[in-house]
């Protein structure tokens, strides 16, 4: 099976791309097209040309990682395509083939996976106070620094059920429910994907002369400045 055929198996791709007429309504209002060197119309056009070498180059490039998945493109396309869904299918394939470590933006999959799947499996949330570190999030402002320093008291003041039992804001999600999430991860390929991302990233880290931990921090923070037209 070649790359294009594999792409066609992804439901998001089947919903996301019927036929493109290169009109540019997607790019015109795409937040990423304005602030990155990025043009969703071109990506869709490359894919619909079905050239394997071009698709592989795309999967190894920074380009596919610029989209913010806001799906604004979906509203406007006169051919009912959603370039954002095409991007999601391309990203999934880039990960499956281990191509993501070939680009600066693709390598960020590692810290993202560690953070988000870690939060889901450990806490049952995608975002959780314990892993929202002030030093990584200075933009959250002094008020949030203060909040993070007084989590229990502050949540109690506002009426959250932080780490409590029963329902409510930021309750502790029971172990049995987190076990079910883990079972879902195992059943549906998420666990395999996590392992794959770790394996590929480890190999890349070694190649770059870093430990996996250093690599995680580096990919989280490093910006070469190549995102933009100069």
């Amino acid at each position, binding site marked *: 099976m070649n790359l294009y055929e594999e792409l066609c198996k992804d439901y998001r791709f089947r919903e996301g791309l019927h036929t493109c007429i290169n009109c540019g309504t997607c790019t015109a209002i795409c*937040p990423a097209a304005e602030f990155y060197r990025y043009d969703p119309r071109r990506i869709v056009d490359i894919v619909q040309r079905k050239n394997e070498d071009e698709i592989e180059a795309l999967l190894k490039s920074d380009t596919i990682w610029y989209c913010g998945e*806001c*799906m604004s493109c979906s509203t406007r396309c006169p051919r009912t395509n959603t370039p954002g869904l095409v991007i999601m299918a391309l*990203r999934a394939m880039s990960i499956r083939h281990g191509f993501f470590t070939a680009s600066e933006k693709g390598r960020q999959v590692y810290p993202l996976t560690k953070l988000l799947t870690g939060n*889901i499996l450990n806490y049952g949330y995608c975002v959780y106070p314990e892993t929202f570190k002030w030093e990584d999030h200075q933009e959250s402002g002094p008020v949030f620094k203060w909040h993070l320093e007084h989590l229990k*008291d502050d949540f109690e003041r506002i009426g959250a059920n932080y780490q409590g039992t029963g329902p409510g804001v930021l309750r502790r999600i029971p172990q049995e429910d987190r076990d079910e999430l883990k079972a879902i991860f195992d059943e549906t390929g998420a666990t395999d994907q996590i392992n794959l991302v770790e394996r590929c990233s480890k190999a890349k880290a070694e190649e770059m002369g870093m430990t996996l931990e250093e690599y995680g921090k580096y990919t*989280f923070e490093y910006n070469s400045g190549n995102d933009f037209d100069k």
Partner: protein
Amino acid sequence: MIYQGKQKIWADYQKEIPDDHWYYVRSCIRQNFFPGSEKMFTKITRDDLGLDMHENAHHTTCGGIAYHCDTIPQETVMTIVARQFALMTEAGYENYCCSCITSFGNYIETLESWHEFPELEARIREHLWKSCKREFNKPKYIAHTSDVIYKHRNEIAEKAKFRLVDKNTGEPLRGVEHIGCHYNKMFPSKGVGGAEYPYVLCGMIESWGGQVIDYPERRHCCGYGFRQYHIKANRGYSFANTHKKFESMEPYHPDFILTNCPGCPYFLDRWQYVTAETEGKTYGRNGCGIPVFTYEELASLVLGYDPWDIGLQMHQVAVEPFLDRIGIEYDPGAKYLGVNKKDLGRPSLPEHMVCF
């Protein structure tokens, strides 16, 4: 701007919203950054509106953020969604109501994909059975929590102690609304008012006495972008998008911003702070920012709840000038106190943006 033209579109996109008996699920981001909003949603719907708003302690994240950061496969997120539906089914509910816009989009996308590809639904049912031994019925109806507040906006207006009016001049306060992209951009007919001129928040502002103002970049994304924010190296994208919106709304001098998405109020609030601290620029009056509210916060304020009970102290942009204009009373000294007036210290003040 021809107001009647918008009214026609609003009339075209009136979605049916059930009266009662909701199964409620929470939002990861809102619980972290706007815990007061979720608390107030259940309180207002149950105590003020008398609705049956059921919450099950066993529900989890829908996985939407991890999915849109491309860290879990589509079948994984769909199976998590299926598990949420199973909990709803077990609790005997059919009307599903979620606090998060990413979730809302995720649920709608899942149901639409299952409709389009029934074999996918069959596979997800199998995954759920194998992993959790659960089965589910699909919800009859999926609403976002802002839909529920929208439906009851006039009832809230009747019970309101305050209106969105300047107490000194009697003029309505000017609000801009910001809709989360996944509320209506993927499936315009699923949102009140459609994708181009959404009415879900406009309706609340109008009903509570304020004036809605439009500005050129109203429809533009706040710039969350999932991986574009969670990765520090990419945050320049997120910042730039919000900044673009503020530059566009600045000449209209809005008094407040109303949002219905989990991330947007955080970004619209915090990127104002970053703009102030990196460029020395503020967009509100007297060196303050423009306060950004969730619809629950605004509903709570007009209903007369204490600003610190609903968690407005967690905003970086100061809300006090807004409260003063309406005439909402508050104790400035109590802002950062804990339960039983416990002293928790206070946040340091930003250098450039005026905060209290």
